[in-house]
């Protein structure tokens, strides 16, 4: 199973600023291994961010998002102490979900 994400969520004015790093190979399917064989694609396809039961960001990704993906965005309506949940699923059906508590500014 993939390693946990590293999520930082903090207040910036009236908005929640979220930065996340995900642990994933993001294989394009075009890379060859040492023996010269193509390594099959393995990449995150969908990312969903929820807060208080509501989706605050969702994304579809292709193979050209960098390995160990990073994402930074902001949303309104969160408060310190509340949780932000980030989930992903990749093309092999593997998934991971982590949450972080929003910290003060």
């Amino acid at each position, binding site marked *: 199973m993939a390693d946990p994400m590293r999520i930082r969520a903090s207040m910036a004015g009236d*908005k929640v600023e979220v930065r996340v*790093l995900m642990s994933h*190979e993001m*294989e394009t399917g075009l890379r060859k291994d040492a023996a010269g064989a193509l390594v099959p694609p393995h990449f995150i396809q969908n990312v969903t961010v929820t807060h208080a039961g509501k989706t605050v960001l969702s994304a579809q990704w292709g193979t050209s998002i*960098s390995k*160990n993906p990073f994402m930074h965005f902001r949303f309104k309506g969160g408060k310190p102490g509340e949780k932000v949940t980030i989930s992903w699923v990749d093309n092999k059906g593997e998934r991971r979900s982590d949450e972080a508590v929003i910290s003060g500014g």
Partner: protein
Amino acid sequence: MSFHHLPAAVLVGVLAAALPCICVAQQDTQKEIERYRQLLAEGNPADLFEARGEELWKTPRGPKKASLEQCDLGLGAGVLKGAFAQLPRYFADTDRVQDLESRLVTCRVTLQGIDPAEATRNPFSAPGRPSDMEALASFVAGQSRGMKLAAPLRHEKELEAFRTGEQLFYRRAGPHDFACVSCHGESGKRIRLQELPKLTDPDDAQKIFTTWPAYRVSQGSVRTMQHRLYDCYWQMRHPQMDYTSEASIALEVFMAKYANGGEIQAPGLKR
């Protein structure tokens, strides 16, 4: 439009983008590369390695089902904070000068009962094959973040290692006649766009030596100081350097002498 939520680095980028656009002149290349690095600094994937390293550090493993929490990294069993800042150093129990990775191997062998060959089997990760050493080194180095490097260089064997490292630093060999000093003997030079530190200049050494281990975007992984040396010798057209070899540690002691006093910013983030 308001900028106050943007990190400073991005803000600088926005302002730069607002300047009248000119074609990229030679002198601007370095500036743009600098900007590239600033934009990356917002999130260092080495964080992921530090977290995994902490997990590995605390989890009982090996035949002895022990964690690494009692590992003596030079400041006593179980002392993590600041230990990396005083490496490499002489260890009486092994009667050797050891760097971080060499010492981690010792702890895995003695505390966890892992076979020495197994403990050094996969020091450098490849895609789909993560390395425990890269994660552990990231975690331990991170525990000295912000501290000043103070490798001791007092014990007779530490001084001996320095002399050896010095000889090796200038030793030219192979089909390209390369030595470490071929690339690291002058400040302000670069290979392609990569600046090269003069490793015998404290100003350069203090800034660079203290940023390893580092996440290398070109490799998609944290790489350790042992890998840095292995990779240099690869480029020098030498055969592969043995992991935690005496020569590698001697070179680290040599570099540490000049880097001493530099603030540890490891794990870093590099090309």
